């Protein structure tokens, strides 16, 4: 990176924080489940539920590159984007590229399904259960447990794919996507001329999204 290059923010701090907390929490959830530390599994799970809900609200109220609607709009450009991938070079997308958009939605969906089934899951002994399992029978809770166990493989598969894609960008396209996800910044020269301005986080939008997601988690906890 040449000295003096202007670096502009493309990922707001909330997006980055949620992303890296997910990176910590998914392995922590797996590990706590393997060890049978179900009280920790539940705490981690509710934390991740709050983060995923926050990310969903942030997809509507967040900064420009966090929002879902522009991401969905550009999915039409997916075939053209994939076609050019092997060519290398080219200017970077300001925000999610069409493939990254797919990755975001697939991961949110899979993790969301994992959280949703976990809420209703009952363990084989009827001794441990998710906070909403009170609304289902033992047998139904066991079915949720089976889906919860199976779906984890999908989560792992998507994570592996996600990491592989980032490795591909790094090695095959010499495009470091991890750095901007840490610092939020990227060299302005990476983008096409007339590139967009920096993104902005509206404090009120953050407070609203955070309150909404905390309220949802609170409601889940007190539903019994």
């Amino acid at each position, binding site marked *: 990176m040449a000295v003096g290059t202007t670096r502009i923010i493309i990922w707001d701090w909330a997006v980055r924080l949620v992303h890296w907390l997910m*990176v910590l929490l*998914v*392995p922590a959830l*797996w590990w706590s489940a*393997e060890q049978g530390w179900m009280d920790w599994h539940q705490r981690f799970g509710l934390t991740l539920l709050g983060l995923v809900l926050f990310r969903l609200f942030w997809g509507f109220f967040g900064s420009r590159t966090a929002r879902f609607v522009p991401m969905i709009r550009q999915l039409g450009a997916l075939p053209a984007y994939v076609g050019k991938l092997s060519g290398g070079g080219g200017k970077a997308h300001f925000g999610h590229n069409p493939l990254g958009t797919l990755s975001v939605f697939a991961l949110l969906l899979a993790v969301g399904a994992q959280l949703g089934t976990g809420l209703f899951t*009952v*363990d*084989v*002994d*009827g*001794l441990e*259960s998710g906070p909403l*399992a*009170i609304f289902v*029978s*033992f*047998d139904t*809770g*066991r079915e949720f447990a089976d889906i919860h166990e199976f779906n*984890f*493989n999908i989560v*792992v598969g998507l*994570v*592996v794919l996600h*990491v592989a894609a*980032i*490795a591909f960008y*790094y090695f095959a396209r010499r495009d*470091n996507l*991890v*750095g901007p996800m*840490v610092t939020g910044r990227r060299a302005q020269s990476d983008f096409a001329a007339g590139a967009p301005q920096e993104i902005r986080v509206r404090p009120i939008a953050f407070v609203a999204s955070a309150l909404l997601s905390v309220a949802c988690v609170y409601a889940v906890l007190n539903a*019994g």
Partner: protein
Amino acid sequence: MRKIGITRIALAFAAVAMLSACGQDEEAAAPAGGDTAAAEASTEVKAQIEARQAQYKKIGGAFKTINDNLKSGSPDIAAIQAAAASLPEIAATMGDWFPEGTGPESGVKTEALPAIWENRADFDQKIAAFQAAAANLNTVAQGGDVAAIGAAFGATGGTCKACHDNFRLDD
């Protein structure tokens, strides 16, 4: 610096993927081992195994009822009492649910480990501990004191775990 970052993350996830794969191998390996002799006896053995699984599901259902009510702000004591009363009845014959030949060597899918028949005395002792705890839970439940029920329920759950740790395939 960035290269280290990406390598570290990739390694962490590779480790996660591999470790979870290990868990699956363990599970997949267990129900194997059926042979022709076992296949002949399998109708009866299969029925025995399925019957005991149904009994354990009843216990699980009763536990869930008690657990749900203990966790709720306004526990339904009558529901707890009914569930607690069913436990000693179901558990009374538990020692007979594991005749020789109803382990994984039968080829029937079961989480019962061969250790049951290798350490039968210990296994029977664990069952007796559960039966005593369940009887006590029932007595306490009929008293209606929620805090005392919670303690007795915890103790009963402990006897389940004590046995499952050594004699049931890790789920």
